[in-house]
């Protein structure tokens, strides 16, 4: 089963776009639910993206990519 990792709607206030500053796990790695997987920066503030479920990570959006709320940035294969 595939679960998408999207940028949560409530991660920051407003509709400003952000940028992925770091993937903290390699593409293809196994991650556990709740693991910190990426950082997204909006202006000077940084936000954390956690894995919603456990599974094998497949990165869809690279570091330095601009993302909005709801953007799918990776998939998890359980």
């Amino acid at each position: 089963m595939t679960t998408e990792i999207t940028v949560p709607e409530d991660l920051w206030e407003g509709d400003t776009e952000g940028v992925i500053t770091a993937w903290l796990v390699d593409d293809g790695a196994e991650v556990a639910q709740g693991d910190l997987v990426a950082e997204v920066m909006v202006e000077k503030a940084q936000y954390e993206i956690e894995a919603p479920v456990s599974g094998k990570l497949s990165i869809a959006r690279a570091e330095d990519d601009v993302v909005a709320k709801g953007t799918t940035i990776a998939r998890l294969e359980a």
Partner: protein
Amino acid sequence: MTTTTKSASRKLTIARAMAEATAQEMRADPRVFVMGEDIGPLGGVFGNTRGLYDEFGAERVRDTPISETAFIGAAVGAASDGMRPIVELMFVDFFGVCMDAIYNLMAKNSYFSGGKVKVPMVLMTSTGGGYSDAGQHSQCLYATFAHLPGMKVVVPSNAHDAKGLMTAAIRDDNPVVFMYHKSLQGMGWLGTEKGATVAVPEESYTVEIGKAAVAREGHDLTLVSLGAGVHHCLRAARALEEEGVSAEVVDLRSLVPLDRDTVRASVARTGRLIVVDEDYHSYGVSGEIIASVAEHAATRLKAAPKRVAYPDIPIPFAPTMEQWALPSADKIVAAFHQMLNES
């Protein structure tokens, strides 16, 4: 609350690595606490105390007034009284308002007590430019601190070393200045160097203070640097490889104590030396490294050594000027070509 991944490939930014080392030491040792400007709920202007306030509270993660003289002096007093404070000087450039507490007090109390008074504290401070913050928020000042006796000085280039050096610094019975380069912090707005975000073990570990690392092996040329400069060197080494030149990169990691042996051993093999430093050119780390090699008979140089360092000017604001002045991989490659032409 920060959660950490269990994955073997887990990577951290230097900011997170510093926070993780601090949190682990705070859990293990109630004497460890953190003080500084904006290190509480904000988590540090450069992210290196994120999560600590939530876990440990306002008593052990203390936001201070903008009073560097008082709170760095207070850290010395607390350390002398048995605590292990970690204190943040937000930008190293701000040392001008509080250097007395650092070099006359923190660095000298052990000596003036004949070794009876311990000052086990960490002074962490951000360095470096490249993002147009001009000359009062962009300096490195590595040599300024390393020059003055009585304090250890470490400068990590990646998150693995940052965590290990931070743990070692907190456990050290001497004052340690932990200088972290802003472009390595993983804060995107400071121009993040991707190479600094690397795999970091979750368990606690130390990186020995005073030991350099060979970041890349080679046999034609030795590139010596620290902090962000290591990444310029690694890029230059990759470019030189395409020309058939094998460059070794030495990451100093510590300035005090300075691992001259590793530098000399490398230069003894390669016979060529370029030192890369984002601190000022004159009277600095680059001169010290070259002198350390030159005064040692076993390290015969095949060519005069070179340095790629910051010119002796205040750091300018305009991006065109600042980027022109900063060290870069291109400048390192050019310095090597010049070295070949001269020899």
